[in-house]
């Protein structure tokens, strides 16, 4: 599936807080190809979220370059909104819009940003909801859904914009254990359908099974990367060995 066609190129990305006292990202260089399912692992505070959030510039990096489809989006002169539409993002805490129904959540961006006609957007939204088994919930409000259902909606809400890449920041960390599976199922389907994905997760089973690349971060640095087999069965870096010993 991977076509070796670079979708995102991250070059020496740095994010400092408090004038450099905290180095959340300390020089990350990595390419993400079309069709990649890149799983990012690492201990708490290692900069995984910061890395993911930098990719669509929710976090403004201190220095470094991010080329998305060949365009340097860290240059403040580019129109970010155009690029953000093409990067779907799924958050740990879902971030559904509580004052809007599920259907309204899904069609807002297609209608207002992409100017898709409302009935077309609705049809598409219902089709997506059907795919995750929630078509009958279209007219309810987020508060009436379980955590797993909310996250499934959040995923299809992002998909409704037909993004070129999906970014996931610990999508199952806020869920009750029995709901983790239903969300991972949706993500697995998405990966099999060829979607480019960057996933920050503590679900090592998922990383092993679905990821085609695994990246290990610690202290804001990318310490090791490779196939799931490389990372989980033949780790080189001591920090990674330590980390795996704790989580596996």
């Amino acid at each position: 599936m991977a076509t070796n066609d670079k979708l995102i190129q991250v070059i020496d990305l740095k994010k400092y807080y408090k004038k450099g006292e905290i180095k959340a990202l300390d020089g990350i260089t990595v390419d993400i190809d079309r069709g990649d399912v890149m799983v990012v692992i690492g201990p708490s505070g290692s900069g995984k979220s910061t890395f993911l959030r930098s990719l669509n510039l929710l976090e403004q990096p201190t220095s470094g370059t991010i080329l998305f489809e060949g365009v340097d989006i860290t240059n403040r002169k580019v129109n970010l909104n155009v690029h953000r539409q093409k990067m779907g993002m799924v958050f740990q805490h879902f971030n559904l819009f509580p004052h809007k129904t599920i259907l309204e959540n899904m069609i807002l961006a297609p209608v207002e940003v992409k100017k898709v006609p409302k009935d077309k957007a609705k049809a598409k939204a219902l089709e997506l909801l059907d795919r995750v088994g929630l078509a009958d919930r279209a007219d309810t409000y987020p508060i009436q859904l379980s955590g797993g259902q909310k996250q499934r909606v959040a995923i299809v809400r992002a998909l409704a914009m037909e993004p070129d890449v999906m970014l996931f920041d610990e999508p199952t960390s806020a869920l009750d254990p029995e709901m983790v599976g239903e969300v991972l199922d949706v993500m697995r389907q998405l990966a099999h359908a060829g979607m480019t994905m960057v996933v920050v997760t503590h679900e090592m089973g998922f990383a092993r099974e679905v990821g085609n690349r695994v990246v290990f971060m610690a202290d804001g640095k990318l310490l090791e990367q490779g196939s799931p087999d490389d990372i989980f069965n033949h780790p080189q870096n001591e920090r990674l060995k330590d980390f795996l010993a704790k989580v596996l």
Partner: protein
Amino acid sequence: MISSEGFQATFRYISMFVEGLVCTVSLSFLTVIFGFMLALVLAVLRLSPWQPFKRLGLDKNGHLREEGFLSALGRFNPLNFLATCYVEVFRATPMLVQLFIIYYIVFADVSLPTFKLFGSIRFDRFLPGVVALSLNSGAYLCEIIRSGIQSIDGGQTEAARSLGLTQTQNMRFIVLPQAIKNILPAIANEFVTIIKESSICYTIGVKEIMFAVASIKGATYRIGEPLIIATLVYFCLTFPTSKIIAHFERKMSRGDKR
């Protein structure tokens, strides 16, 4: 000092209280509406992302400068600055001073039509009163709205922006609708405050409740009884209003926990 004869004398002028009541209510109502519209504009200005000197805050690679004068200039937002000045000035000076400036200076050379609203309220006094009260409560309501907006979980904005919505669309579709719901009780409380503060307008001859007290005092040489009645009228106006607000506040927070 206070006697039943006094009350009898006062009650002969009870129609003045009725007129005063109508005037106070319409004054407060218009003030809260215009004040809110002004406040909305001020709040949007205060939170606007406009940075006209943004490019001066960028280095040659197009990245944000870390510190220094150019960085500060790059972040400078004149709209926020002006709106903040407005809010601070109006909150830091007495209402009475503002009212007199509006009535005696701003409207000094404006010849307003002299017709009467509801048969008794002189428009040329009423309008400056509404304007002064609205300008003042706009400053307070602005801060209520601003804190309401800032109380919305940042994740909402992140989700909206990650979907490609612009800052303006995010405000309009995501943040404001949720913020307004949160701040409705505070706005209603401001309405109660305005009812009480509108009494200041009697100093420029607006025939609201305190004006009725002054007139009756002139006619009957009685002050205690008219004041007691005015107190009762104000209380009957504000107390149920705040109780109704508290009721809706409870009901709304219950809805959130569902």
